[in-house]
């Protein structure tokens, strides 16, 4: 994990609703893994104070002298609005790469990537790494409406098979990704599932994965104050190794990627069992 004063290389509008920020941060780009995130500090303002965490959407290690990372986000409040107002050459304080990324399977070949809304952004990075490792990549991506799908063209290019769903039917299948998922798994012969997006989607994908006895890795999003493991704001309820108890585990350092089967989805917001040990650290 590094802290930098990086430099904005470019800001561009990404589709109708999203913004893309490319930041020069060679050390972060060099070591980042798909699923990890960066914590960006928006320019100072009195209405917000905290950093903003974003999944790393893509890295460019190629131009080694000034390797970059890219994040894609939508404006949700004054902090993200300030980030969206940043322009080339602006200095930006960035911490990263943070957290545990997606694991690349050793023996399994067919990987299905499932994304929802703006949460789908780490799929670009993941898909490229999987393909570089010689895996088959298929993509299933959903959103509420066409304009909230992230870069459909590139997802099409990424997947051997790519399907889209929208809640309003404006693009692709009219419905949810989980409506298409069983069919997709069978058609593609999927052996591993990767999912990132809204929590209900991750939970539903996990349920289907368990039914098909497939490993599933999910990237969780939680409210986060520090992103470096000290505030304990971002915890998620995770079953311990034996499955006998549930512990509050930091999504920033121990996550954001977890084995979906170990997330205690239904325990969210309820009292937890006593811990029976420290979570793997």
């Amino acid at each position, binding site marked *: 994990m590094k802290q930098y004063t990086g430099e904005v290389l470019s800001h561009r509008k990404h589709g109708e609703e999203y913004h893309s920020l490319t930041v020069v941060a060679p050390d972060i780009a060099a070591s980042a893994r798909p699923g990890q995130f960066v914590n960006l500090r928006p320019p100072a303002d009195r209405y917000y104070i905290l950093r903003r965490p974003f999944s790393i959407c893509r890295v460019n290690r190629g131009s080694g002298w000034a390797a970059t990372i890219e994040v894609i986000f939508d404006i949700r409040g004054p902090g993200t609005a300030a980030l969206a107002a940043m322009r080339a050459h602006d200095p930006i304080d960035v911490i990263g790469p943070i957290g545990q990324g997606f694991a690349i399977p050793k023996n399994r070949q067919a990987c299905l990537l499932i994304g929802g809304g703006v949460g789908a952004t780490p799929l670009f990075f993941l898909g490229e790494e999987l393909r570089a490792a010689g895996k088959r990549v298929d993509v299933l991506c959903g959103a509420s409406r066409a304009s909230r799908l992230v870069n459909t063209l590139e997802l099409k290019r990424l997947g051997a098979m790519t399907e889209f769903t929208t809640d309003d039917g404006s693009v692709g299948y009219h419905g949810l990704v989980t409506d298409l998922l069983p069919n997709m798994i069978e058609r593609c012969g999927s052996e591993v599932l990767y999912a990132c997006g809204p929590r209900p989607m991750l939970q539903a994908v996990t349920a289907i994965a368990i039914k098909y006895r497939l490993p599933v890795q999910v990237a969780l999003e939680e409210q986060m104050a520090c992103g*470096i493991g*000290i505030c304990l704001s971002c915890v998620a309820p995770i079953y311990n190794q034996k499955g006998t108890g549930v512990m509050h585990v930091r999504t920033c350092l121990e996550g954001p990627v977890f084995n979906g089967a170990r997330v205690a989805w239904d325990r969210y917001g309820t009292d937890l069992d006593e811990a029976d040990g420290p979570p793997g650290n």
Partner: protein
Amino acid sequence: MSDIEDLTTTELLRPSELVKPIDRKAEAEAAGRGGRPQADLSVRLAGIPLRSPIVTASGCFASGKEIAEFMDLRVLGAVVVKSMTLEPWQGKPPPRMVETPSGMLNAIGLQNKGVDYFLRYDLQALNAAKVPVIASIAGNTQQEFVRVADRLRGAPGVIAVEVNISCPNLEDRSSMFSHDPKATAGVIGNVRRCLEVPVFAKLSPNVTSITDIAGAALDAGAAGLSLINTLLGMAIDIETGKPRLGGVMGGLSGPAIRPVAVRAVYEVRQAYPDVPIIGMGGVMDYKDALEMIWAGANAVAIGTANFIDPRSTLDITRGIERFLVEHGIRSLSRLRALSGPRSSPPAPSATPASAAPSPGAPPSAPLSRR
């Protein structure tokens, strides 16, 4: 291929010119151990010599391991670790944090791995990092506080214990120990009896008179006070009408609460001119820290600022040092002696330099106008 390589090495900026990685060596030197003449930041807190007045606020630094990746912990006067309880606690359900104007609300609920884990793992790491430790303890009942304190007796490197009585209390139902002078005195008295190191009582600002509670803690044997814990607050989602925190209500911290903290420190300092005070609440930069010192704090704890910039404590330490050098003040104790908005004359036990501004004192204008 070689054309491209030539281009990158000759005509384009190198990464080091575009970004500034952390230079730990320069940091260590700037922090005063590299031989350059700097102001003396050392302070005494309840008889304990600290190299700097800047410490961490409990719960905002974990046990230091994470931040050690970003800065040298030896810059700090002490690390006040996250409050520990007898058994591991899982804390409140998520969501646990909401950002608010100039602040944040949290409802973590003292999640921690318990005192035994602290002694076995965290304390060892802190001792290896050579940083003094102030152990913060919490519990649901008086008995729990005492049992945690008991385990900490003689723990190496623990220079003081901070008793977090501003957490929910089951004995008195929904209130906190620090809401009631009697409950405060009970816990502090019992904890103090099983420890040899000084005991600091961490008080809540959510009371009618913080000086009354402070008095009760001091009478019961607290060596000093930590002022203040978070303010109780709440946020509601307007779409659903439901509380935005899993724990419904939470603690407000950050710059939004600084004036409350400065007031509390000032008020208690007025009432108790000699009591050691660790001041905290929304201190974001060295100016805020100096304000807290003027208000009467002997040491200043940094909380929420760590979340925003993991190197805040380092920046603040450097800032204070620079301020002293720029004003021609050689040491922090001299600055503290210059005035501070006390209405009564400094007590005899105060530092010897307190009599009058010495020749080394700064130009009178900016400082004495306080």
